[in-house]
């Protein structure tokens, strides 16, 4: 069995299985936990919980003007690499072919040149995020092993993907194998680390929105 056979065979299969099992474990165990009863008196003009949840989520997409100046870099940089990652994952032809193999769905791809530019911008943005984390004293103090591993397993697939597409230093099959193996690492770490925010962000921000709208707090 070649490295590529292993990477796109058992390795990615096991990684996807761990990802699916881990995500369901986290979500099911969280959603079935006992819910604390909200004993506050609901405001007469409080909107329905669903409206409060949506408002809360949308409102948190951008910080209030009071905090904007202090958090502008992290907000903009965060958007840059999140949008960049989405463009790379869903826009590159090879990725669409991979996803089509999994789900049977496909869509038109973006030109390779566009993906290359987005990849370089995303890499720079991820490096900037790491640099900020390591140089801001408070952020550095708050950062844990989880933050650094989550960053690393996100960074590695992008950098190995750029190297593979550029055919640098090794045969394409080897580069592709390494790229797929780094994606396996990403999938395996995802449910157990902070990458799980991709799912949990919808729950936490919606719950905050419901909490505030019930009390009539302007956010």
């Amino acid at each position: 069995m070649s490295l590529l056979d292993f990477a796109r065979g058992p390795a990615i299969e096991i990684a996807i299985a761990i990802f699916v099992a881990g995500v369901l474990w986290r979500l099911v165990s969280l959603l079935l936990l006992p819910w604390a009863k909200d004993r506050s008196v609901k405001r007469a003009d409080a909107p329905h919980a669903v409206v409060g949840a949506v408002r809360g989520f949308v409102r948190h997409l951008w910080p209030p003007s009071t905090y904007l100046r202090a958090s502008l870099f992290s907000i903009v940089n965060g958007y840059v690499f999140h949008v960049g990652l989405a463009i790379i994952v869903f826009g590159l032809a090879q990725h669409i072919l991979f996803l089509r193999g999994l789900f049977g769905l496909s869509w038109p791809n973006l030109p390779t040149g566009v993906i290359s530019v987005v990849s370089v911008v995303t890499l720079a943005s991820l490096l900037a995020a790491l640099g900020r984390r390591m140089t801001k004293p408070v952020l550095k103090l708050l950062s844990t092993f989880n933050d650094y591993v989550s960053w690393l397993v996100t960074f590695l697939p992008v950098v190995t993907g750029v190297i593979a597409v550029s055919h640098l230093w090794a045969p394409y099959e080897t580069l592709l194998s390494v790229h797929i193996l780094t994606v396996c690492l990403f999938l395996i770490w995802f449910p157990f680390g902070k990458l799980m925010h991709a799912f949990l962000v919808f729950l936490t921000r919606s719950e905050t929105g419901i909490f505030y709208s019930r009390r009539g707090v302007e956010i």
Partner: protein
Amino acid sequence: MKWNGGVSFPIQSGHGCLGCSEPDFWDRGSFYRPLSSNTLNDVEIIGGAAAAGAAVGVASAWLARRRKQRAEKEARP
């Protein structure tokens, strides 16, 4: 039966048989898979993982509820 007005066909050009004279040719899928696609895609493994993950989630939530009930019992005077 040759292609391109009788110029050639896959075997003549050194390729394996594509079954081009079989019924519904093309519509039964390609002979090839893209290099980037996974080769197993075993629904049973992924489905089993989903079931196992959900079961562990239910079990851990049940344990948490039991812990809560015990704590409430102990806290009662």
